[in-house]
């Protein structure tokens, strides 16, 4: 059978890929259901069970929103796990560790210093410290894998990245619980200051990367993706050590809103996607391609990663910005008041809208898109940090 599928190279990594990480193809809805294995159904049932238990135990304490969100978690997490099987294990690990941590506390924050496992594993700060360590080592491993063409180092890299993601997520969940131990009035979701969202950022970027690693069956991008994460982790540690930013502070009234819980995570899926795209862009640059002759993923793959990452980033950033507007309407009395943070969100959004259109315009080459994506990350970073540093505005949180 002759088959002229051009270009041949990009399809190669896909072809060798075991079907396990095959993408959910809309063209194959029926097959998609057929492909569900025992693990999928078990996972879905486990989710359902977990949600039910949570509801039965805490239902009376939850309002309409809470219930709706809890319910939504089941299909969303199920879909995620089905479309991306490794996620099932990730979810299970995070659930197990977080619950272990919460259980060890026995409702007494002081135990963080007394109980061995809390002190050295599960207490939020320790977990986050583990995350940081794992990310750093993973970065090294990926680079060794890249330079020495060592498959083993590469595999170590992914394992460590997974471990880091698990610890990061656990850290956040336990921190959430710790905030409640500080006092029922203080308890809040840990995405309310710069320190916490940096953990969130590292976590999301890592997960996004891991998804594409499986999706394209190549670990070569890890060296670059983990660089961004390492930088943000470095910042996070500096910020904690010099400014004590890791301490849980109560929420200022403006942040006591339901919108925060969805606005912030949506934003950080966006940031994560953009960061990943930028790093793919770096790897795409002809200069580097020459420098690492043959060691980097094929340009077509990188181009594709860039597009996919920006696509998902843009989609979520759109939602995040809309949610932000809805929130602003409640908190500040206007859905849009051209506050610097808002304005820069718009700028970031426009920038990637431009990128997506550029890609559709005839005669725009990949290198240009790569540079644009890299510049995009700079703009995004400014929107994320610079605004808080240099421009005053209504966004009360996260000033350094």
């Amino acid at each position, binding site marked *: *059978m*002759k*088959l002229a*599928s*051009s270009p041949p*190279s*990009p*399809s*190669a990594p896909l072809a060798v890929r075991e079907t396990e990480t095959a993408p959910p*193809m*809309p*063209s*194959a809805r*029926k*097959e998609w259901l057929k492909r569900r294995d025992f693990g999928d159904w078990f996972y879905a049932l486990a989710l359902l069970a977990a949600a039910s238990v949570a509801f039965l135990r805490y239902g009376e304490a939850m309002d309409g929103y809470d219930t709706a969100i809890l319910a939504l978690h089941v299909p969303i997490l199920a879909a995620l796990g089905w479309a991306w099987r490794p996620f099932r294990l990730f979810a299970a690990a995070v659930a197990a560790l977080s619950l272990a941590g919460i259980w060890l506390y026995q409702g007494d*924050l002081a135990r*963080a210093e007394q109980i061995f496992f*809390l002190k050295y594993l599960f*207490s939020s*700060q320790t977990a986050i*410290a583990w995350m940081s360590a794992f990310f750093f080592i993973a970065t090294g491993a990926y680079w060794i894998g890249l330079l020495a063409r060592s498959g083993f180092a590469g595999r170590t890299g992914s394992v460590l990245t997974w471990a880091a993601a698990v610890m990061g997520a656990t850290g956040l969940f336990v921190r959430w619980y*710790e905030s409640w*131990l500080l006092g029922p*009035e203080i308890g809040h979701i840990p995405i309310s200051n710069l320190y916490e969202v940096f953990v969130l950022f590292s976590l999301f970027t890592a997960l996004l990367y891991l998804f594409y690693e499986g999706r*394209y069956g190549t670990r070569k991008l890890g060296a670059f993706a983990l660089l961004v994460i390492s930088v943000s982790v470095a910042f996070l540690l500096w910020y*904690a*050590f010099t400014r*004590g930013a*890791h*301490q*849980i*502070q*109560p929420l200022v*009234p*403006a942040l006591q*809103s339901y919108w925060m819980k969805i606005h912030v995570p949506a934003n950080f899926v966006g940031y994560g996607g953009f960061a990943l795209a930028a790093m793919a862009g770096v790897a795409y640059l002809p200069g580097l391609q020459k420098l690492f002759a043959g060691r980097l993923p094929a340009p*077509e*793959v990188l181009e*594709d990663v860039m597009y996919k990452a920006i*696509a*998902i980033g*843009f*989609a979520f950033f*759109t939602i995040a910005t*809309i949610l932000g507007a*809805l929130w602003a309407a*409640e908190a*500040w*009395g*206007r*859905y849009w008041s*051209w506050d610097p943070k808002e*304005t*820069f969100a718009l*700028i970031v959004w426009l920038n990637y809208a*431009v990128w997506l*259109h550029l890609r*559709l*315009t005839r005669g725009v080459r990949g290198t240009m898109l790569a540079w644009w994506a890299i510049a995009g990350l700079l703009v995004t970073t400014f929107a994320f940090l610079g605004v808080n540093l240099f421009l*005053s505005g209504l966004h009360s949180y996260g000033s350094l």
Partner: protein
Amino acid sequence: MQGAAARFLAALIELLSSMRFAVSLLTMLAIASVIGAVVQQNEPANAYLNQFGQFWEPVFARMGLYTVYGSNWFLAILAFLVLSTTLCIIHQSVPMLREMRGFREHAREASLRLFARHANFAPALPPAARRGAVTAYLAGAGFRFRVNEREDGVLVAARQGAAGRIGYFLAHAAIVLICVGGLLDGNLPLALQIRLGGKVPTSGDQPVARIPASARLDPDTWSYHGNLYIPEGGSADFAVLGANDGILLQSLPFKVALKRFRIDYYASGMPRRYASDLVITDNDSGESFERTIEVNKPLEYRGVTLFQSGFDDGGSILRFALRDLVPSRRPPHPLDGEVGARLPLAGMGYDYTLEITGFRPINVENVAPPSDDEPFGGFFGGARPQTSENLRNLGPVFTFKLRDAAGQAREFNNYMLPLEIEGRKYLVSGVRASQSEAFHYLRIPLDGDAADTWFAIRQIFFDPERHAALARRFTERSLDAADEITLRDRLRETAENTLALFARGGLEAISDFIEKTEFTDRSATEEDRQHVGAAFIQILQGLVWDAWMSAREAAGQTALETSDGHAPFIRDTLLALADSIRYGAPLYLQLTGYKHRQATILQAARAPGKPLVYTGSFLLALGVFAMLYIRERRLFVLLKDDEALVAMSSNRKTIDTDETFAHHCAGLAAALGTASAGPEESP
């Protein structure tokens, strides 16, 4: 001629609806927004003067850089975006709709072979069964298809994911909706009222009653966003809108009365909740209802939304003890005043007006830097906050200005309760000559719990008429009768001069004096200076002691034994006396009691464009996801008697298109009975 115009128009539309134009528009919009974010918007004019200087300030003003988002050029960009997107939609609609409906079942074999993705193989099934097998597979894979029997074979043309195109329409129509809605809610309507409606903003600092009709907007104004200031027990039925350096009054369709404003605090003293208990009374129906609003919990009524945006003092009543700092023998004088009031003090013999500017009953401050005794500031373990221990409530604080006859004012910031500093208690008062300075603090030491002592000492110390007596008293105590007259006289003189010097210029005056008189000869060493300086300090402290004792006598209290126990108080007193010379006020205001009254600051907004914007946003999200995640795919299967030709096209170039193609090739091959190995693996 006609033709030329038509062609020009066509070209123009072509340009406006082109992707490149879109790209440049969006880029321009982004850059414009950057300007608006970097240059602080809607600041008072003189702020910009300081920032940009005489030359640039007017230039930038002309360019509208201080109100970018209301400036004509910015609105122009938005208008172009709307226009361009609209044209783009129209322009794309015809081909896109055709694309969505059509199957291209007439595609020619030659062109299929030119597709980037095409493959061919020999079907094993008998010709009769092939068509059925193919259509069955396609249906199973979620394709819609059309079959065309032609002389060169049977072409099955299939497609899926047309919804992606709908996404395009949704997302881009949404952009238009949002922009239009946003324009309606922006300050364009207000600008029009001013330009065409003959409304003129007036100055903010004048009684409401005096504001002319030309500066009042009636309730049915299209859209607005303004502030309400309501003291407890008070009410308002209008919002204040800021409009180019002036204000406009926007009357509301209802009256808002504030029963109570509440602040709840966290244990750390940090505010947790701001809430206003309101009574809303409808102007037309006259009926009223109660409602509490909070940050993030607004109230919507008759198309107007009320938000908790801030709070202020609502005219608390403060009771003071006014203490003279100029020589006098008056006891502290009681005085009442309301926050915001201006009281002439002529009645008390001062040519000053007292302006009470602010009052806070609770005043939480961070009194110590965060403890970093733990390594890494206690990074590991549970993330327990540490800083909260350093926050302490320092009690009521009030701020006031003393304006002299010449109109010069100094600002003061006085704490009601004594503050404990290194284990000793002080009355604390901050003073500054201008807004730009930080407060300099005067710490008045307490004798036990009494503030009177220091003031009494000061009265004696700075009263020339009493210097002689004080000096004598001091000499008597320091030397006994045995010493000869001349020595005593000399000491008394020195003491008296020292008092005079000190009263004039504090410790500086004394050190200057030392420089000028004692050490006219160069020979003197640093050591000598130290000695003489110390001697003077000793004299001053001695004088403080005697002033204290004579004050006690005057107050009918017993004298005290000299002991080191009093040394710290003496030292503090002397320092405070020295500082008090630069205090710059003839009197000290001590807060003795208060009746707190708060005011809430609400925002009233009317935004009829909201539904438009929200629907737009919803469509945008929907459309973007559709565009990005619904892949349009076209699959052609040309069945010839000895060959099956498969070709696929997609409107986006992504790798998974190749993958999907390979997948379907394999599927079709299997369906047609050909032993299939997926796509060949390339080395």
